[in-house]
Each structure stands twice: as C-alpha cells, then as structure tokens.
C-alpha cells in the first residue's frame, strides 16, 4: 500500500478534472467541476488518514528521475506543514466553486471552472513537491490559471489588475529562478548536482552564497505572501477579481509564500535565515501595522479584506522567523486559520456585494434587519479575523504573539497593536455595512439561500471547532516544527515557570520538548 502513488493521484485529479471540464458539455460544467474537487478532497482525506503523526519527516514519498542532466527529480512528499496546506486547499476549492456558482455566468463559465481546478492541482503540487526544481516549476505554473481567473472574471479594470498581479509574481519568480540556479551551481560544486530537498538540506553552503541565495528565495516569497513593501498588487487584485478567485489567491496561493519561508528559507539556509531575522521582523511588523491601518481607511469592502491579509501575513512571518516551536506551530496554525477565516469573510462579502450591487462601504448600511443570517455570519467571520477567543485564529495569534514576546518584548508589543487595529477595521466595517437605519428600497433583499449557507457553513464550523479544540492541527504541525527547529539549530528558552503549571495547553505541548 505504501508504494501507491497517493500524492500523484491527488495532484492529477484536479488537473484531469480541468481538462474534462474544459471539454465537457456546458450543462455538466459546474457539476463535473464540483465532483472533481470533491474527489480531490476525498483523496486529500485519504492521504491524511495514512499520515503518521509521530514522524516529523516526509511521508508518502515518491521519487522518479525527471531531467537527469539537471539533477531534477519528480519527487513528492508531505510533512505536517504540507499536509495541512494540502487539506486547506482541498477543502477551500469545492467551497469556492459552490459559493461562486453564478459568478462566472456572464463570462466563459467553462473556463472559470476549468482554470480553478487547474489552479488547485498546481497548488497541491507546490505543497507536495520535495524537489526544488519541481517546486519552482509548479510555483510559476500556478500563475497562469490565476492570471486567467483574474483577467477573465470580475469587475472592470480586471485586465490591468491581472497584468499587475502577474508582473509582480513573475518578477519574484524570476528572482527565485536566479536563486534556484545558484543552488544548482553550489550543488554541482560539491559533487553531483541534485535538486532534491533532502540533498540540499545536507549541502554545505558558504556563508556568502547562502545569504545571496536566501535573499533570492525570500524576495520571491515576500512578494507571494505578500509582505510590505512588495504588497501593492494585493489590494488591486482582490478589488477587481471575483471573491471566489480572491479566496483562491489569498487563502491558497499566498500561503505558498509563508510555506516556502518555512520549508526552503529555514530548511536550506538556516544560517542566512538567522542572519536576516532582524530585517524580516521589521518588514513583518510594518506589514502588520501598515496593513491594518490601510485597511481601516478603505471604502471598498473587497479591498479592505485583501489588505487585512497583509496584516495577517505579517503575523505569520513573525511566527516563522521567531525561530521557536511556539512561533513555528503558531505560524502553521495561523496559515490554516487565516485560510478558513478570510475565505469565509471574502465569500460572505461576495454575497453582500451581489445583493447591494456595489462594493463601496459608504453606500451600504441598514442590511442587518433585512438579511439577519448574512449579517450574523459576516460578524462571526469578522470576529474570527480579529482573533476573538473561542474562534480558531485566536489560538494561532496567541502562539505567534507568545513567540514574538519571547524573541524581543518590543516586537511583541508592536505586533499586539495589530490586534487592536484589527478590532477597529472589522467592527467599524460591520457597523457601516450592516447597521444603521433601514433603507426602504432594501426591503425585498433576499437573505442567504441554502447553497450560499451550505458553502460557508463548513468554514464557520471549522473556525469554532478549532477555536475550542486546536489539538488536531497542533498534532500535525508540531513534529514538523520540532524537526525544523533542530535543523535550524535553535532550542526554545526554558520557561521561567515549570512547564506543568502553565495552563495553556499549547505551551504544555511544547513543554516536553526541551
């Protein structure tokens, strides 16, 4: 059973689905697409069931020589981090397809569903790739479906937004290409060139080379994530694209940035990562505060939600580069929770925009009484985003802040302001959009129908579930983080109080690792 190519199957299912949808009769398009995305989800669950929680290394590995001359392998595998990202992707895509059922009706419906599935397949491959070259190939290839999804569907001005998106991403990608080539040269100097992650982590990279290569990788991932100051594509893209596409971009594709920081920056260049930490922390803190401040000032609801992600990715980066097990686990958890919470917020905002016919917050208001379900769900998603205890983002935010304070008190102090600002942008947005005197012409506005509720319900349930019981996620993430931390060569600081007297269960979990 172990030799069964589960991951290949997982990656191939949506890609085959994309082809089938592309050529299927138009009446079957949507059903076939959802069918394939559910099949992918089932495969993702099958992968998760075979995953051995106790081992921190790569599992379900597959490896075949791909391009021998370049030392390139078709190599797949998942660790805890990869598995969580795979599951997040597999869960979000069917939800997005159902939620965006009518979003593409005025364009080429078939293309929308086919490109979405193609994007899913390539993203899954990104999270599974254990060969840097393969990773790079699929990393770049995801941009093509994303480009056509942004450019083909959404609001006026989307063509320019798509070009801006692609230019930023490809610029980052080409810088990454330089670093990937550098890795090949370094690897060739030390014997036979190879791109396998397992070979590269063993590589003895000189300090200078390591720092240059790290810079290449980090810039690419910072554009992807995005971090200040290379975030400017984010708001434009989320403003013009349909909410469903924004979910795919922000909740799936952007995760590649922070995923790459954990796996490649820390994994291959531990020395350079530690060297760069101060600068990265500064950028991350700027992202947290600046993203939140700019979000407060937005009048476009989709733009606002896009910019909140800038703030969130700042948190994740702080967690990654705090170089402690709380930070690492917190960052991974944050990636999942941000995926769930922001997806819910985007989709609900999409429902809202469909009903109001505008995205401008200043022209909304007074919907609460007419559409109480929409308003209620929107509030829950918003509260999750601002990190209310009892909802899952709280746990991850707490862990990240813990690690930030561990790293330096002033880093933690600045990061905490992000939470305060989050409360402002979420609650103020809710107030302006939903509360206020009822408007007579809104009276007939329908509340959410069953399809719409069905699409976001799993997200909200997960937010509540993991808010009270985050252990499943932590169980998956912790072994990976432990491995990574020992590879980077850091040990957690001894807590000042004995581990067993700390009430927080996450900290208890870490307590045994010292």
């Amino acid at each position: 059973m172990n030799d069964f190519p589960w991951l290949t199957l997982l990656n191939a299912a949506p890609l085959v689905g994309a082809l089938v949808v592309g050529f299927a009769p138009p009446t079957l398009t949507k059903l076939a697409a959802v069918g394939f995305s559910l099949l992918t989800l089932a495969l993702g669950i099958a992968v998760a069931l075979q995953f051995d929680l106790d081992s921190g290394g790569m599992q379900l590995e597959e490896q075949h020589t791909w391009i021998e001359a370049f030392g390139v392998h078709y190599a797949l595998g998942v660790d805890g981090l990869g598995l969580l990202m795979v599951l997040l992707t597999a869960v979000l895509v069917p939800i997005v397809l159902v939620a965006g059922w009518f979003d593409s009706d005025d364009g080429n419906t078939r293309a929308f569903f086919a490109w979405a599935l193609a994007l899913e397949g390539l993203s899954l491959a990104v999270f599974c790739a254990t060969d840097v070259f393969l990773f790079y190939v699929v990393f770049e290839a995801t941009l093509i479906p994303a480009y056509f999804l942004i450019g083909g569907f959404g609001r006026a001005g989307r063509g320019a937004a798509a070009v801006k998106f692609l230019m930023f991403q490809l610029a980052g990608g080409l810088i990454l290409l330089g670093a990937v080539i550098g890795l090949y040269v370094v690897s060739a100097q030390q014997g036979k060139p190879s791109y396998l992650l397992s070979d590269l982590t063993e590589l003895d990279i000189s300090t200078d080379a390591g720092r240059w290569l790290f810079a290449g990788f980090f810039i690419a991932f910072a554009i992807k994530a995005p971090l200040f100051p290379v975030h400017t594509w984010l708001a434009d893209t989320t403003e013009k694209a349909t909410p469903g596409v924004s979910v795919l971009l922000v909740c799936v594709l952007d995760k590649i940035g922070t995923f790459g920081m954990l796996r490649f920056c820390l994994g291959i260049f531990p020395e350079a990562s530690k060297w760069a930490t101060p600068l990265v922390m500064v950028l991350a803190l700027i992202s947290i505060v600046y993203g939140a401040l700019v979000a407060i000032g937005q009048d476009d609801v989709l733009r606002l939600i896009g910019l909140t992600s800038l703030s969130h990715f700042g948190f994740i980066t702080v967690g990654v580069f705090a170089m402690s097990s709380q930070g690492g686990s917190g960052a991974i958890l944050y990636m999942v929770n941000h995926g769930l919470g922001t997806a819910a917020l985007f989709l609900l905002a999409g429902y809202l925009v469909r009903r109001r016919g505008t995205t401008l917050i200043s022209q909304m208001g007074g919907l609460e009484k007419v559409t109480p379900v929409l308003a209620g769900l929107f509030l829950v998603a918003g509260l999750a985003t601002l990190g209310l205890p009892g909802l899952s983002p709280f746990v991850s935010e707490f862990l990240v802040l813990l690690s930030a304070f561990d790293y330096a008190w002033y880093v933690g102090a600045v990061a905490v302001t992000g939470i305060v600002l989050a409360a402002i942008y979420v609650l103020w947005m809710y107030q302006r959009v939903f509360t206020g005197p009822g408007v007579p012409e809104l009276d007939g506005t329908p509340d959410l129908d069953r399809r719409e509720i069905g699409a976001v319900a799993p997200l909200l349930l997960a937010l509540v579930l993991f808010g009270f019981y985050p252990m499943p996620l932590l169980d998956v993430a912790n072994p990976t983080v432990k491995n990574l931390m020992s590879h980077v060569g850091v040990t957690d600081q001894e807590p000042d109080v004995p581990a067993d007297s700390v009430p927080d269960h996450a900290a208890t979990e870490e307590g045994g690792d010292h």
Partner: protein
Amino acid sequence: MEFVKPTLQYFELAPMLIVFGAACLGVVVEGFLPRARRHVVQVVVAGLGLLAALGFTIWVATDLTSRASGAARGRLAASGTLVIDGPTVYLWGLVLVFAAAGVALFAERRLEGGVSAFAGQAAALPGTEAERQASTRGLDHTEVYPLLMFAVGGMMLFPAANDLLTMFVALEVLSLPLYLLCGLARRRRLLSQEAALKYFLLGAFSSGFFLYGVALIYGFAGSMQLAEINEAVRNDVGNESLLLIGMGMLAVGLLFKVGAVPFHAWTPDVYQGAPTAVTAFMAACTKVAAFGALLRLFYVGFGSDRWTWQPMMWVIAILTMLVGAVLAIVQTDVKRMLAYSAISHTGFLLTGVLGAQASGELADGQVTSLQAVLFYLTTYGFATVGAFAVVTLVRDSGGEATTFPRWAGLGRRSPWVAGAFAFFLLSMAGIPLTAGFVGKWAVFTVAMSAGAWPVVAVAIVASIVAVYFYIRHIRLMFFSEPEGEVAAVTSASPLTTVTVAVCAVATLVLGVVPGPVLDLVTNAGDFIR
C-alpha cells in the same frame, strides 16, 4: 607545391549534398516545366529533399565515430575544411526541421485565395499596370523554393566549416538567397523591398568585416584552419593586436547575423518587411546556423583565449538583452515586437555562449554551455516558427493584420489560434512547463556556473521586462474589448495548421519532458578540433 586531390566523405556529407542537389534540381524545374505545374513540383522537390537530408542526417548521427574517449564524436571531412561532429549533425537536424516548416509555410496558398504570399512578378514595379496584371493572372514566384534550399545548404555548411574561408563562403551562400526572399512579399511590396535592400547593404558590410577579420587572423596565425589558429593562440605566436582586431572583426560579422546589439538595427525592419513565411524560416534557421558557427569559431578557434573574448561577450549579451526587451515594449506591431524579442533572445543565447568552461571545471554530469545553447536554439526555434506561423493566419481585408488594435479580443473569436500564440509567447517568456523555461534555465545556469553572475542578474531583469510585453499581448488578445476594424483568423490549409500544431506540441513536450532532447545534445558531445 604539389596539388593533392581532396577526398570527399560522401556518406557524411550526404545531407548537405542532397540539399544542394535539390536546390539545383529546383532551378532546372523552374527552367523546363510549364508555369502551371511548377508550384507542386517545386514543393515536392524541396520537401522530399529536406526529408531525405533529414533522414541521412539521422543516419550519419548514429554512425559517428567516437573520439577523445567518448567526449566527442565525428570526423574531419573534405581534407579538413569541414567537421562532421555531434554538434554539427545536431544543428543540421535543427536547420532541416525548421526549413521543412518553412517550406510548409511557403507553400500555403489558401490564405491569399489561391496564390502564395510571394509577389506575382517581382520585377514589376509596385503600383504599376504590370503588377496589376501579374496579380490578376495569378502569377506566382516559384523560385522561392530553390532559393530556400540554397540558403539551407549554406546554413548547413556554416556550422560545419572548419576553416575561416569555408565559413565565409557559407555565410554568403546562406545570406544571398535570404536577401532576395525578403524582397518578395506580395503585399506591402515597398516595405518588403526596403527590408531586402537594408538587409543586403548591412549584410554586405558585415561580410566585409568578417572577411577583413579572416585576413587579419591569417596574418596572425598563418592559417585559416580553426585548429591551427587555436594552436597559434595557445602558443602566443605572432602579433597580439592582429589577433585582437581580427577576433573583433569576425565577431562583428557573426554577431550581425545573429542580430546582437549594436548590430541589430536591421532585425525589426527585415522581420517586419519580409513575407512572414520567410521571417519564420529566417528567424529560426539563420539563428541556429549562425550560433553554430559562432560557437565553433570561439570555442575551437579561440578556445584557449577565453579571457579575451568573454568580457566582450558579457557586454554584448547585456546590451542585447536590455535593448531587445526594452524596445519591444514600445512596439505596436506584432512582427516588430517578435523581432525585438528575437534580439533579446540572442542576448540570452549569448549568455549561454559566454558560460564556456574547461571540462575540468565542471562537475560530472553538469550541463555544458554548448549543450545549453543547442537546447535553447531548439526551444527558441519552435516557438518562433510557431509564432510567425500564427501571424500569417491573423488577417483582415488588407492581408496580414499585424498592428496591435487588430488583435484585440482575438482570444474570444478564435480561442485555439490565440491560445497557441499565447502559448508561444509564454514559452518565449520562459514560463515553466514550456520549452522556453528549460532553455532559459540551462543558459542561465552555465553562465552562473562560469561566474558570470552579473550577466545572469541582468538577464533576470531583462526577463522581467520581457514578460511585461508578452503578458500585455496576451491581455490584448483575451481581455481587451475590440474597437474598430479587427482581424480574424483565416482558415488555412493543413500545411500551416500542422506547422503550428507541431510547434506547439514540441514546445509543450520540451517543457515537460526535456530529458530525451537534453540527452541528445549531451550525446552530441564536444566540438572536434
């Protein structure tokens, strides 16, 4: 001095002899067959000639003797004036494949309503009664096929030349028919003739440079043979300044042919003015042949003096990439955009050329610069032929519609053709899963490994710039609303359709499974001295 009768290796030279034979046969056909039957016969003669030559090329390739303990394969031929080695045979194969695509595009007659894309009567002045008559009588120049075959013969001779004089002869043999072909467009004839004249004048100049360089190098080394020149360079005999000036002048001649900055000025005008089928053929094949000769000259002839010419290549590669990419942005004509993109690709190829390293400096199994350049030429050739073939399809009432506004919204009217064009553009931009990416990776790698990281850094910047105009064109085709008169895709005969399809499939396959072709270039081995 005793005259020794040269022995010719007929088997190894067969592909070239077949091509020249078919060209001569084409001339005979032109003279003796009635006009009505010429077209079909010429196409058959040229096509069969190329296929037979390709078959023989493959046969020769499997039969090359291994030398230098497997590092190289092949032999000298024709008393040492030619080398038939792995790289030569590989380049022959490339030239023949792209030339076959060229013949297919030449033979396309459905697009113009039953006549070819070439002038009805080239001697008739544009806008005169004679031209109108030639057009109404449906006249056709079928001489283009023998011209193409002669050019192909020159292109095969060029990378095989082992001495400077043969190289010069090959240069002229390939250039003269191309000058003519450029001036034979059926529509926009003044533009076409202007292109031909420009190409001819500048080409003649560059040939002059080349010839002068030959003379100076002969003065330095006392020989035309590349191996002996190499020996002289290594032993540092003779006058150093003769060598340097001669090397520079040879470089001018060759860099002109590949269209490197600052010798690129002809490229956009000629690519735009020439009939698009000729542009497709010329853009791919000339580059293949000229890079073959450039590689042989610098790797074999001046191989022991890398430190002299590598800095020059650095500067030229950097200039070429930047100028090509930046000027492509401001173009408003598809053919000119592709021409500037061709210039920037020349820069990328030069990045590979300057990545030359001695075999001892490379790890076991590491990609060599020769392999990288050969592979890049393959990927670039397919994308270019495919892209220009698509350009022949997109037409309005005035013939091919090459200005940007005409292409707006093409993706919605003809998704397949626009999709193919977008795919070729993505390959040129070097997006993964297309052939262009693997080629780009290869040339950047060899340059980086040779320590030319500044060139690679510029190459990455140039790639980012280049991505912009490719993406912008894709946006124009798929997301822009058409305004005014727009172009439509004319249905073509299988000749063009199959060419586009083959190029697209090759671009995809080389991007996803480049292994077999990389093995092929690896097996080709090194140049033989």
